């Protein structure tokens, strides 16, 4: 409780410092270069100066944070990838050559690729299907809320939830995991899903699909509602049936949104960490890049060079999407 109180105090201090900075720096600027009650030439000059400086006062703290927490680390990671475990001695490309001959890395990479194909595709597809169906029924909003709900659950919480579903008791005992209970009910043999080679990856993916489908659904549902009614009415008049309307009229009009949803989930998938750590910690061939990177960061006191090189791989995989996003944002800026 004491701790919470001190956190609140810190929070108030933090916000006050921010407020004080913004207020104080702007006040100072106005005092130094007054723009009222002065000769016209001075006002004009001061106005020029203040409009030039003020944006940077507004942006200052944000730029400092972004530089220290995101921009500088990217540069430093690239440098560190050429250095040894403590980040002191230069080792050239040996981290890279280690990486590409490391079986665990190849396994992580392969698994990440599978995640990359399965999760964004399934979540986007399911989200689209659910969005289009819930828009047509009267209790659609309730259904949406329930499907959206896993969004609020942490990956670790979701892992507990699903580990319980995948729970395995040896044959003959009562199965308390739902999946095995269903399998046994239909006369099958109970399986230890989590340690089943290859397929266990998919059982982990299900967790992320379960979480992300709601996100896809919410965004795609808004996009579907934005489709002009006239296009659909025209198709109906021309005698198109429901499925034709959906695939030939509606989906093409929201391609842009589908791409946004798909890439957003893709980025999330590349960073997937908590689920693998909590469910298997990379055992039974389920390792992924983010978890391997985390392991190397702390293994035997931490190997910063190898950790950085794995992080770089994730970064390289993200880069195409980053460039695409920036381009899109620039086009929008020009459009204004």
């Amino acid at each position: 409780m004491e701790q919470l109180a001190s956190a609140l105090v810190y929070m108030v201090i933090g916000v006050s410092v921010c407020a004080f900075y913004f207020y104080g720096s702007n006040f100072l600027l106005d005092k130094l270069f007054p723009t009222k009650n002065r000769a016209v030439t001075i006002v004009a000059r001061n106005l020029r100066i203040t409009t030039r400086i003020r944006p940077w006062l507004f942006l200052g703290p944000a730029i400092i944070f972004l530089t220290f927490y995101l921009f500088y680390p990217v540069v430093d990671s690239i440098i560190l990838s050429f250095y040894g475990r403590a980040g002191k001695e230069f080792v050239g490309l040996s981290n890279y050559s280690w990486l590409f001959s490391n079986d665990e890395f190849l396994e992580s990479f392969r698994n990440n690729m599978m995640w990359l194909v399965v999760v964004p595709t399934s979540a986007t597809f399911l989200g689209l299907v659910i969005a289009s169906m819930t828009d047509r029924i009267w209790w659609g909003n309730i259904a949406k809320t329930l499907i959206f709900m896993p969004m609020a659950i942490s990956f670790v919480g979701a892992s507990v939830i699903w580990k319980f579903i995948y729970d395995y008791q040896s044959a003959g005992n009562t199965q308390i995991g739902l999946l095995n209970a269903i399998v046994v009910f239909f006369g099958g043999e109970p399986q230890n899903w989590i340690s089943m080679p290859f397929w266990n990856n998919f059982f982990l993916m299900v967790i992320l699909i379960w979480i992300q489908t709601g996100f896809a659904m919410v965004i795609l549902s808004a996009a579907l509602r934005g489709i002009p009614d006239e296009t659909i009415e025209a198709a109906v008049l021309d005698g198109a049936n429901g499925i034709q309307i959906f695939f030939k009229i509606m989906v093409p009009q929201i391609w842009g949104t589908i791409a946004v949803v798909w890439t957003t989930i893709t980025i999330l998938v590349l960073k997937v960490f908590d689920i693998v750590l909590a469910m298997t910690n990379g055992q039974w061939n389920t390792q992924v890049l983010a978890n391997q990177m985390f392991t190397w960061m702390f293994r035997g006191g931490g190997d910063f060079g190898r950790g950085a090189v794995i992080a770089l791989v994730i970064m390289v995989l993200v880069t195409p999407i980053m460039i695409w996003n920036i381009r899109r944002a620039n086009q929008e800026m020009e459009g204004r």
Partner: protein
Amino acid sequence: MIRSSKRSPLVYLTHATVLFLVIIWTIPTAGLFISSLRDKDQLAVSGWWTALSTSTHMEVDRAEPPSNQVQESDHFVIKGNILHGKSGKISKFGYSSLHPQAYKAGEVAQIRNGQTLQVMPNGDYVLSSPTQWRGRNGKRIFYTAEIPPHFTLNNYKVVLGADGLGQSFINSLTVTIPATVIPILIAAFAAYALAWMRFPGRAILVASVVGLLVVPLQMSLIPLLKSYNWIGDLFGVSSKTYVGIWLAHTGFGLPLAIYLLRNYIVGLPSEIIESARVDGASDFDIFRKIILPLSFPALASFAIFQFLWVWNDLLVAMVFLGTSPDHMVLTGQLRQLMGSLGGNWGILTASAFITIIIPLCVFFGLQRFLVRGLLAGSVK
């Protein structure tokens, strides 16, 4: 949308499919919640879907030891209740592991040499023998009991008391509240500058924010850990502090905050801002008196995002806060419990429910803002 179609079988199919999907999506969480309220012994032997029905299971327990025997006329008798106060109804019993269900409750089992065992449906048993009972341990009694559904808050009591989850709960709040509030102000000012002020380099800054939006956290971990250790050494303090994690979450949350807020602020009607400028208001005044109040919905959306993200975060907390008891957050604690007591579902389900209850309340209470934020953040 397609309202012209008549009530065809397709409509019913839609209802059925959505219902099916909703059930699939909610059952996992429902299972967790129901399980957390069940008795931990029942939880281990029966699926949670049987929680509302009477469960039958086989148990073994020892009778009172021979030292507690009493002599009744010519017999030596040991009495007691095999259920030890638990609720339930005995249907069958036995005295050997080979035939654990040999007798119906109420029958008298002949053991040997005139020894008998009788177990009543309510659990009362009588062991009787013409000679004195010997040995140190009580006799084993096998029984099959029908246990009625039984819900309890015991799991929660255990979890909140002994396992440090209470402390973790406070730790999580300590991390989350400042880490949610501090970025908002910083981002709001930056967003306004990027939306409504003209200065060289603005386009590049906007592009950088969009770019930084997707930079994987993993890139930042090692360099920042290094910097934190260095700063810690410099001032002779621990590198794992709450201040450190607040600032880290602020840094990681800023790109989304700036992006969301800028998208919102740029859409505000320019007439308001222009006319305020004409009236001689400075940018600072415009921001404080016009922009801030008008952008409340966007601020709320971001606050919810940041809250959910920080509360649910495991990675940043493990790297920058560590796992000592007074620093362990809920997600970290839950993950440790998963490792150490894999099969103790009573504790695990209750712990998991405690970690997800706050985000779920935020979700159901403020869903409107969450959806709005999602839409502003991705659809253009």
